[in-house]
């Protein structure tokens, strides 16, 4: 408790009081733009609200998640997101996408970081070059790659045919067999730089003397990497992987633009927005958004609980 104003405040108390006033605008802003909308989304998931009548929804409990009716014939019909094949398909797409893309990004990012950590002529230029994919807006990269992957006029098919890697032109983004591959390629291309920069920051914190003494002892570079470098950059790498995984789990724009309406790539965010805005199943979409939120929250809690990473950055 703060002392009453009749007593002189101690310096520390004064500072704390000022700090509280400084925090109020930020906390208020986040409460209005994040906490309240999140609470409303969760609430909508338990109602039958529709897009055209946002305030006319009735409380329906868990019906959007799961409900069942027994027909007169005795058969039970289940409905709701949890028995919706479209939803589980989206869950599977999202998880598959997140696992594959983040694994590739971690490995490739590490390789690029190792290259950039070596001293060579033109290193600055290479670092500038890898920043370009990161700087390009996702929508733009989706369009650029959409053009390169075009089935008839795309340069990927042209190159593949010329090099003899392909025997015929492939509709990369339209065919269900390759649509996910296209999404993965574009995402890996775009976000490996981010991974590489975080890995590089970790690599640069390792003192050079360690490498020199390994060299003097004649240890093979591959062994040095696995027994010295990797354990030392692991904290940085782990944080990068967590951030990327969280990002990958909520992917929306790339899928929406590069492979529209392809059930082979539809992710949880895409299907939730589709229901929310386009299909006039506002409450149903809210329930799906809530499920995605829960998945991501569980993931975060799991990692904090593992205690491997100190996210608050204190006491380090």
């Amino acid at each position, binding site marked *: 408790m703060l002392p009453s104003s009749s007593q002189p405040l101690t310096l520390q108390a004064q500072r704390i009081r000022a700090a509280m006033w400084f925090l109020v605008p930020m906390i208020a802003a986040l409460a209005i733009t994040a906490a309240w*909308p999140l609470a409303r*989304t969760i609430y909508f998931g338990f109602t039958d609200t529709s897009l055209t009548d946002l305030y006319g929804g009735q409380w329906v409990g868990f019906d959007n998640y799961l409900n069942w009716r027994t027909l007169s014939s005795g058969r039970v019909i289940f409905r709701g997101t949890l028995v919706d094949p479209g939803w589980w398909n989206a869950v599977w797409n999202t998880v598959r996408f997140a696992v594959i893309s983040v694994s590739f990004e971690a490995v490739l990012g590490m390789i690029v970081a190792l290259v950039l950590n070596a001293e060579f002529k033109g290193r600055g230029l290479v670092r500038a070059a890898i920043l370009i994919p990161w700087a390009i807006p996702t929508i733009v990269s989706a369009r650029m790659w959409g053009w390169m992957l075009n089935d008839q006029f795309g340069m990927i098919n042209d190159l593949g045919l010329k090099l003899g890697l392909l025997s015929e032109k492939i509709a990369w983004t339209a065919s269900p067999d390759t649509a996910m591959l296209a999404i993965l390629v574009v995402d890996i291309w775009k976000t490996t730089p981010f991974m590489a*920069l975080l890995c590089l920051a970790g690599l640069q914190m390792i003192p050079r003397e360690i490498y020199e003494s390994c060299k003097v002892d004649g240890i093979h570079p591959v062994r040095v990497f696995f027994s010295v470098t990797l354990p030392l950059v692991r904290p940085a790498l782990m944080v990068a992987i967590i951030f990327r995984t969280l990002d990958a789990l909520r992917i929306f724009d790339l899928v929406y633009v590069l492979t529209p309406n392809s059930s082979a790539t539809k992710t949880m965010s895409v299907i939730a927005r589709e229901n929310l805005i386009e299909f006039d199943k506002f409450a149903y979409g809210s329930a799906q958004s809530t499920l995605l939120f829960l998945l991501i929250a569980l993931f975060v809690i799991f990692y904090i609980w593992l205690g491997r990473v100190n996210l608050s950055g204190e006491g380090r």
Partner: protein
Amino acid sequence: MRLVKQSLFYFLVGIIVVVSIFPFYYAVVTSFKTGTSIFQVDYWPTTFAWDNYLAVLQQGSFPRNIFNSIFVAILTVVLSLLFAVTASYALARVSFRGRGLLLLTILSVSMFPQIAVLAGLFELVRFLGLHNTPWSLIFSYTVFTLPFTVWVLTTFMRDLPMELEEAAIVDGASPVVIIAQVFLPLMWPALVTTGLLAFIGAWNEFLFALTFTSSNSTRTVPVAIALLSGASQHEIPWGSIMAASVIVTVPLVILVLIFQRKIVAGLTAGGVKG
């Protein structure tokens, strides 16, 4: 043996550079083609015509979309920096109970999926009468720019020496004066970095922009590019799309290259240390 190793290394470097740059290069090459030559695959520039650029800038609402994007991004940056500077001073320099928890909450807000707030924000935007205005975007972008700016500025401020502040406190300066006269002059690098990252975030945002605006004149650039289409599905105007893409990307790439070091420092402060 050494020569082999070195050439292999430079080969790897070459691949990294080519893969990074090629898609953008190819978009630029395509954007300068006209007519049917667009449908011919060329790896080198063959024609150099501004037709696509003129088409994009003269027809329709693209110039308006660019203006919208600039307006939204700048205001988002200014507002989130304004809120974040004072908040991060409190979080970095004053110790109070619950600080760690508050920081963790802020971090988790920056991590949660935007779709989770979409329905609630949609209602709020409608309620406030902001639907289909740039203000709906400035309002909603706070969700992801504010936590991030607070986080990075807090890490930055925490690393500044304590002595700086002590002298000012002894002189009886109030916290507002301390922020304005002691910290702000030192914080320019961090402000530029976080401002730039927030700008890029707002400039690139798609989900909210797609949902909260509904007419050509209020859309931002990413939505405009995503929805750019021809009369039918088979008549996608690739030339115009590439020209529009180049127009919105070039300023960004230039900014990123100029502020390369600062951006890398900001990203790693937000990621590794944070």
